[in-house]
């Protein structure tokens, strides 16, 4: 089985991109960087999964993710999703880009205490049959970094109901500084997914999150990238939403 290619979009100031690339490699995938000005679908030809990494795309000026959402590649991705040719995953700021681009429902507002927070948060896997959770156990608790100033997810009552009903809330936060317990969701068809967390900082022992074994020993983020690589390679066909 050859290593599946995973696209990573390099928005200006997507500060987590380098770590996402590393995480993809460690999970057995081959990262392929994509320029945000890409307007041609062939660049995506051999990709079945594209990640929008987190950070501060375009400084988060205007609104978090808003300027990235206007980049040409977002239209290309939207069309590929429409044609059911690709899965798009937004991590942290990437999730904000997806809501701004209208590819996921809802939006992000300022944290309950309106300022930037960088904290470790315990999350619960609420659905493990998605392109970013298939390597986790259902109900598993995972500890990841969560960061951002506008990281509070919000949606209308109808949107929330729809998300819950269809099981599209994939990951929940136990105690988040953002004010929202919804951390990871997917679109109804499972082709667009977002997670308001940074799993790429929990992939290597000693450089991860806090863990009973010692400071920085937590590597719960690995599962997410393994899930993504699996989804891309369709190694584990069953249970992967969108297959």
């Amino acid at each position, binding site marked *: 089985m050859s290593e599946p290619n995973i696209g990573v979009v390099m928005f200006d100031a997507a500060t987590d991109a380098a770590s996402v690339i590393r995480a993809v490699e460690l999970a057995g995938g081959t990262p392929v960087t994509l320029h945000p000005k890409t307007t041609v679908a062939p660049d995506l030809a051999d990709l079945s999964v594209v990640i929008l990494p987190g950070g501060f795309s375009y400084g988060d000026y*205007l*609104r978090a993710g*808003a300027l990235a959402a*206007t980049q040409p590649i977002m239209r290309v991705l939207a069309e590929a999703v429409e044609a059911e040719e690709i899965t798009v995953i937004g991590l942290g700021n990437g999730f904000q880009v997806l*809501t*701004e681009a209208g590819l996921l*429902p*809802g*939006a992000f*507002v*300022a*944290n*309950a*205490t*309106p300022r930037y927070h960088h904290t470790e948060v315990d999350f619960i896997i609420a659905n493990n049959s998605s392109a970013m959770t298939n390597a986790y156990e259902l109900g598993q608790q995972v500890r990841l970094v969560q960061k951002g100033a506008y990281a*509070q997810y*919000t*949606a*209308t009552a109808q949107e929330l109901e729809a998300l819950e009903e269809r099981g599209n809330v994939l990951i929940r936060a136990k105690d988040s500084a953002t*004010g929202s317990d919804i951390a990871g969701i997917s679109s109804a068809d499972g082709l667009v997914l977002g997670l308001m967390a940074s799993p790429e900082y929990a992939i290597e022992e000693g450089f991860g999150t806090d863990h009973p074994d010692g400071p920085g020993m937590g590597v719960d983020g690995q599962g997410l990238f393994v899930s993504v690589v699996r989804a891309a390679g369709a190694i584990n066909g069953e249970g992967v939403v969108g297959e």
Partner: protein
Amino acid sequence: MPTIVVEVMPKPEVLDPQGKAIDARLPELGFREFSAVRQGKRFELTVEGEVTDDVLDRARTLAAELFANPSTEYIANVEVAK
């Protein structure tokens, strides 16, 4: 050069943590006249040349497409600055 002002506010039903945080400080600062604060954005667009109805329409389009996120915000005002 003329300027078009575009104003965007959080929808009344959407959480406005920034407004709320200011709100909470008002009594402490001695401002009891105001019962609520909401915080939005104001944009100023410089127009080269005359502000025709067409240009104003383009400003409305820009506001809708870029300046306001329709799921949380609405356009409170688009007008030529006095």
